[in-house]
């Protein structure tokens, strides 16, 4: 169409008139409502948190009077960077990303592709709804549920494993807790990623599939050589959001910590932020840890995006 347009001077002229100053106003106006909310309810609190992170509490005497806060610059950050509990938590969530997130994404891709080649509409709807249920379950509900499903004497799973003759199976024990929590995360979030990938697969033009089939491609070749590459942007996005989610893991380990001795209050960095802010009442230090966590997440996301862009460019 653009080829035709450039041939006709009148149309060309009108095109240029269609990008006057108002075309800068229009997108900004469209963006305004979102960014207004964003500024009020994200940026303001973030700025406040950053300001808090540069302060420290000061008390006089025994501490019977309300404390005052004074500016200490980057001291909280220096402490945070040397804090073994924060470092340990970071290493741990990275482990979860490498093991749980990546395997979950592989599983989600396999499910999405399997779903795509299913012809039964009822089957598809059933699987999609079943995928939706786990992550739509509130964490509070999940914690009650898993406290029964993992309790050594109340769990039908443990009971079944024991009946099969395997001893020492306790998903809450220190040497199995990693897998116990991995299972909960996988159970909860695989469906979410399946839905993202299935939505992306819906964007694949059916003519492309038909043409490939007519060329005699097997289903396997279809999946790996055509659908997978077309899924790449969605997979990149899903991986990125998984990484951010895992780095900020809070709810799942927090709710499981009540039923096991194997999860400490600083198991993940975000749990450490919560404990420091709300239990220890050290809001300043908690803000510093949160900023470090956010910065690290940002750097890793940036690196990840750059890396995937370079791969797709090749």
């Amino acid at each position, binding site marked *: 169409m653009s080829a035709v347009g450039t041939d006709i001077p009148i149309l060309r002229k009108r095109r240029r008139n269609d990008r006057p100053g108002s075309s800068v106003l229009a997108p900004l106006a469209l963006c305004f409502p979102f960014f207004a909310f964003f500024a009020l309810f994200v940026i303001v609190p973030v700025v406040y948190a950053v300001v808090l992170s540069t302060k420290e509490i000061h008390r006089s005497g025994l501490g019977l009077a309300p404390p005052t806060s004074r500016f200490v610059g980057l001291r909280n950050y220096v402490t945070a960077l040397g804090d073994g509990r924060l470092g340990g938590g970071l290493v741990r969530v990275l482990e979860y990303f490498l093991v749980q997130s990546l395997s979950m994404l592989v599983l989600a891709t396999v499910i999405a592709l399997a779903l795509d080649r299913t012809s039964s509409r009822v089957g598809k709807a059933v699987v999609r709804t079943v995928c939706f249920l786990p992550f739509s379950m509130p964490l509070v509900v999940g914690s009650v549920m898993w406290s029964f499903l993992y309790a050594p*004497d109340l769990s039908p799973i443990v009971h079944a494993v024991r009946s099969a003759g395997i001893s020492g199976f306790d998903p809450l024990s220190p040497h199995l807790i990693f897998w116990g929590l991995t299972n909960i995360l996988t159970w909860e979030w695989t469906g979410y990623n399946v839905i993202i990938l299935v939505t992306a697969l819906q964007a694949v033009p059916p003519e492309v599939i038909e043409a490939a089939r007519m060329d005699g491609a097997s289903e396997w070749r279809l999946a790996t050589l055509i659908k997978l590459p077309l899924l790449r942007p969605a997979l990149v996005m899903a991986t990125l959001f998984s990484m951010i989610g895992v780095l900020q893991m809070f709810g799942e380990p927090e709710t499981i910590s009540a039923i096991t001795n194997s999860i400490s209050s600083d198991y993940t960095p975000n749990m450490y932020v919560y404990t420091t802010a709300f239990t220890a009442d050290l809001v300043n230090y908690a803000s510093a840890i949160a900023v470090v966590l956010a910065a690290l997440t940002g750097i890793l996301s940036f690196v990840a995006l750059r890396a995937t862009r370079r791969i797709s460019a090749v």
Partner: protein
Amino acid sequence: MATSWRQHLGRRIGAAAAVAVAIAVTASVSQAGTDGGRTRLAPAVVHFWSWDPNMGSLVAQFNKSHPSIKVVLSDINPEYAKLSAAITAGNPPDVAQIEFQALPQYIATGALLDLSKDGFDKYKSSFPGWAWSQVTQGGGLYALPQDAGPAVLFYRKDLFAKYHLAVPTTWPKFAAESKSLHAANPKAYLADFTANDPSWLLGLMAQAGANWFGISNNAWKVSINDRPSIKVANYWQGLIKSGAAKTDPGWTAQFWHDLTDGSVLTWMSGGWAADLITSQCPSTAGKWGVAQLPQWGGAPASANIGGSTDAVFKATKNKAAAETFVAWLNTTNESWKNLYSKVHLVPAYLPAFKLKAVNSKLPFFGGQNLAPLLKTASSRVNTAFTWSPITEALYTQAGDLYGQAISGKGTLAGSVASLQTWAVQTLKAGGYPVAR
């Protein structure tokens, strides 16, 4: 035309939004309790934060008998995070229920009213010495004791009979019976070491004479790794190592199941635990007995686990009404009749132990009247026991450390030593002076 349709819609939305905002603002203003000027005979509003599920009936009772005061109850769980945030923002409630262990933290915010200036010292003799000392600091009185948690031994009478166990009166006997029970039935344990509930272990340490904090020369003293604490830590370490104590986390479905099916035969806890056993283990009705804790020797001792106070905030706009309510709730028999039977609290108020309602025979506990037992236990609590301003964080840290010790990474005694270092660091980080 399209434009006028859009203007019309816009006007409609704007009007609806304005109405919605008006409703919301009015609602929040009235909740803030500033309706003193609305009608001339409006009752004074007192906002009361508590977490006990049945406190509402007490509030209703008070409002009925005191028509010039209206107490508005907010049931809040967890209360402390919200309370701290509200104090920071400058809008705390008028009255809040605060546990003994958390009181110093709130005294340190400077937001609590010193009740001694309004004549509340007259109640001193109505409360046990330990309770009164825990609500006073630096010469000021910052709350009235509400309920107590004198630690006693809850045990399965039926299973004790089955395994031919006597009620252990000393800790060495308790250890011996733990081992013999577990040898007789590997699935049964005398006690469960609840690493995730450090208040439980601290209670047992306090019974042995531990006192982790103190104030001297306007500075905090920290002595977490004192001899009684190490003694009790080693005691339980021994039981766990020999397999004679279970290590399931407390307050979980698994824990109630243990108490129900006889995997665990006892629970040492504050008197309020009677109510929990009743509701969480209903099929064991009539099978329980209650006794004093095993002793270490010397003068008989117990400890207080849990228990709450009620404090009034300086920012209250209805001080007289708030104080009237606090006094009524905690120091009148008419309140305690229902606090015991409806909210199932154990009185800190000593005269309440004479009430008939408090001395009821509980069928769940085989017809036993727990009141005399609890009153005696309460009288054996160390009056010098002091809490620090960092109890919540201390419990979290202790829970982490005990959990690691249970999992084989270290010992309980080592945890206690680590806790000492941690507490000194944390007090300093919070700006508190620490004595060396």
